[in-house]
């Protein structure tokens, strides 16, 4: 079985985003770019599955749609343990555009289990995984909180409201993952970082396609009113404020 992990390159989750050009563009000065947290967890799970030889995983590949500037993020994925990487050489215009490019990657080379994160922390679209599955007419499972292999069969946990379902799925399949897929992201070891430099990173030219959507401008959240402090000795006042001022309970 071959695994493909789709990774997105996002600002570190502590970034205080700022915009330039009249709020039309992200100010990238000083931003640390990282693997999208969900994708990092997917990669971790893919490598855990591969570590257990009885699962019969041949390889773990990462795929990314982005310009050359995102190669450090790809190298990080290789350092963590992916065997090889594919970069589609294009600015990721929107989710639809990215899904078209990833579908093309999967047409050039086949994979059995494809991981996508439930969302990427920049545009919060929750879109690419299921779009990709639709392009390829593959089944997909969303809200995935666990993946394992038993006697060659893929078993997936899907979170539902108030519980979970356990599914058996055929391959190829797209697993769209959320919390639970892996406990902690795997960290690159020194040896991994050395090896990453020589691991194959294939660059593929994009398919020409128009995006469906376009962000025309950004806005900062409205500043919240200053916090009103209540005497710790008299929390009753808090309840009264919530009832009479906020009118919320």
């Amino acid at each position: 079985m071959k695994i493909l992990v789709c990774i997105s390159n996002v600002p570190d989750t502590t970034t205080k985003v700022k915009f330039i050009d009249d709020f039309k563009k992200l100010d990238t000065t000083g931003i640390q770019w990282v693997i999208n947290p969900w994708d990092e967890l997917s990669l971790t799970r893919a490598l855990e599955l591969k570590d257990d030889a009885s699962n019969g995983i041949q390889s773990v590949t990462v795929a990314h749609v982005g310009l050359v500037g995102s190669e450090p993020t790809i190298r990080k994925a290789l350092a963590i343990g992916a065997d090889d990487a594919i970069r589609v050489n294009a600015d990721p215009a929107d989710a639809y555009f990215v899904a078209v490019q990833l579908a093309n990657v999967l047409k050039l080379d086949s994979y059995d289990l494809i991981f996508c994160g439930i969302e990427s922390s920049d545009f919060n679209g929750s879109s690419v995984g299921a779009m990709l599955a639709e392009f390829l007419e593959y089944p997909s499972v969303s809200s995935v909180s666990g993946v394992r292999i038993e006697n060659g069969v893929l078993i997936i946990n899907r979170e539902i409201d108030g519980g979970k379902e356990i599914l058996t799925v055929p391959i190829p399949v797209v697993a769209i993952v959320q919390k639970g897929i892996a406990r902690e992201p795997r960290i690159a070891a020194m040896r991994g970082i050395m090896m990453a430099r020589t691991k194959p990173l294939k660059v593929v030219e994009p398919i020409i396609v128009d995006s469906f959507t376009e962000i025309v401008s950004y806005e900062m959240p409205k500043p919240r009113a200053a916090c009103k402090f209540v005497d710790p000795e008299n929390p009753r006042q808090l309840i009264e404020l919530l009832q009479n001022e906020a009118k919320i309970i």
Partner: protein
Amino acid sequence: MSVLIFVENWDGKFKKLSFELISYGAKLAEMLHTEVVALTIGAVENAELKKLGNYGAARIINAVNDKINVFDSQAYTSIIAGFARQEASTIVALSNNNMGKAIAPRLSVQLKAGLGAGVSKLPLGLNPFIVYKKVYSGNAFSHLVIKTEIKILTLAQNSFELIETPNNAVISTITAEWNPESIRTRVSEVQKQSGKILLTDADVVISGGRGMKSSDNWGPIVELAELLGAATACSRPVSDEGWRPHDEHTGQTGKIIAPNLYFAIGISGATQHLAGVSSSKFIVAINTDKDAPIFSAAQYGIVGDASKVLPKLVEAVKEIKGK
């Protein structure tokens, strides 16, 4: 032309988010001078279906088929896309919850329709069609233009007020076109807790962080939640430590929620935590550190030790509620 709304039902029942979505659809239809058609899959009784009419659905379609007993994103997509074509819908709207997220992107590909995921307002403009949605996990918002003729929207939970507009909706129950063989995933087991208020549905959420010190100290949080009909939640280190179950973890890598009222108790307010709760209408923070970032996100705060403040708070709620 029409606005098609896919409304999920839970064992034949709708929830507040269903009515938010219909209310949203009705306003959208008004902007476009068209009508709202609501579609739900799986048997729902007439009395329940009628409720959708109260929020502005002009027609309600219940697509049923005995063999549809599990959720499959491909099967649901083909049913919804079929109706969208039949109704010549220019907008298809869904909730931005687990099911909506599984279906909407597939619809986008099938209908060659741009997707606005997690919109939290009515469109800012119709031509071009501009939607408003959160980006960078709540650290900013975007104006997103959808360039295609058909648009798919998913509505962020608790972002739109319920608007009652009584009417006489026409209800029809039809058999869903369905090929059971097309379903390739198989559900072998379902584990479900009932009776618990779902974190994503709760109007009030009481959440504890590492400042609670130990799982033994959760008594007053649970009691407060019971008194206020609230759900309980926690920060990531708390679920990592095993003090609370994983399904209570809120934030960037946990649940993203938008209650009316969120109590953050012993939670510092890291950006990754706020990413999951910043859409709450009101945040109350209780923390020993007056400089904790959570106070910048909160409207009401108490600087104090949770172990001392909480019992008093519980008493105060009891007294006020008892009256």
